C-alpha cells in the first residue's frame, strides 16, 4: 500500500449518469479508495449529465465515511443543473462544493465511468 500524505487531494472524475445503476459501483470505488488511505477525495462532476436521489444518497454516505475517518469529500466543477439538484435536496448545506473555475491540473486518479 502506498504511503499517502493525509492531506493529499485525490481527484476522481465522474462521467455520465449518476443513478440507481451506477451509484453502488461508485460507492464501492470510494470505499476502496478510503481503505487505500485516501482521506481527502474530490469528485469532479464536470461530465456528470444526471444526478438522482440514488447518487445523492451515495454522496451523503460517502461524505459521512470520509469524515468519520478524519477526512473529507469535496465536489468540484458541478454543472448548473446538478447544483440545482443538490440545492433542492439541501445538500449544499452539508457537502463541500468548490465553486472555483476549473484549472489545468492533472488528476491524480484515472477517470471513473463505472
Amino acid at each position, binding site marked *: 500500500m502506498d504511503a499517502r500524505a493525509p492531506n493529499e487531494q485525490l481527484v476522481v472524475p465522474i462521467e455520465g*449518469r449518476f*443513478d*440507481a*445503476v451506477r451509484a453502488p459501483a461508485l460507492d464501492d470505488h470510494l470505499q476502496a479508495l478510503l481503505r487505500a488511505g485516501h482521506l481527502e477525495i474530490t469528485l469532479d462532476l464536470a461530465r456528470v449529465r*444526471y444526478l*438522482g*436521489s*440514488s447518487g*445523492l*444518497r451515495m454522496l*451523503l*454516505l460517502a*461524505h*459521512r465515511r470520509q*469524515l468519520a475517518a478524519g477526512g473529507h469529500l469535496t465536489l468540484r466543477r458541478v454543472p448548473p*443543473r446538478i447544483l440545482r*439538484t443538490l440545492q*433542492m*435536496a*439541501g445538500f449544499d*448545506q*452539508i457537502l463541500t462544493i468548490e465553486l472555483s473555475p476549473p484549472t489545468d491540473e492533472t488528476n491524480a486518479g484515472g477517470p471513473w465511468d463505472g
Partner: protein
Amino acid sequence: MGTLAYRESQPGKQSEMCVLSQPTNLARIAEFVGSQARRAGLDEDAVYDIQMAVDEACTNSMNHAYEGQGDGLVSVCCYEDETDFVVSVTDHGRAFDPGTVPEPRLNAPLEEREIGGLGLYLMRKLVDRIEFSSDKMLGNRVVMRKHRKVRPSGCQSPE
C-alpha cells in the same frame, strides 16, 4: 432485456414504453421521456425536470414496489393535453402509499440527515402537479404534469 413494448401514435396522442424492472432500463426511459417532452414543446430545463421526476418514480417502482426483483413491468406513458405534458408511471408491485414516507429534513445537520424520502420529495418539487393512486387491479400509478407553453400551431414560442 430492454424495451418490451413501445407504442407511439400521432402527435398529441399517447406514447408508451414498457420495460422490465431493471435499473439498466432507466437510461432508455429517460431518452424516451426526453424526446416526447421536447416534441411537446418543453424547454430544456423542463425536459430535465420531468426526466428526473420519471427517473425517481421508476426507481421507486423497481426498488420498492418490486423490491429489487427485475421481472416486474414498469410502464411509462406520455401524452399532452391543452396545458400540460403528462407522464404516468405504472407498476404492479407491492402497494405503495406515499403518505407513509416521511419528508426529508432538509435543514438537519449531516449526522442527522436520513437516507430515505429524497426521491419522492424531488418528484413533488420537479413537476407542477403529481397524483398517486394504488389499486389491486390497476397497480401503483403516479401521474406527473409539467406545464407547457401553449403556442399557436406552426409557431415557436418566443421565450
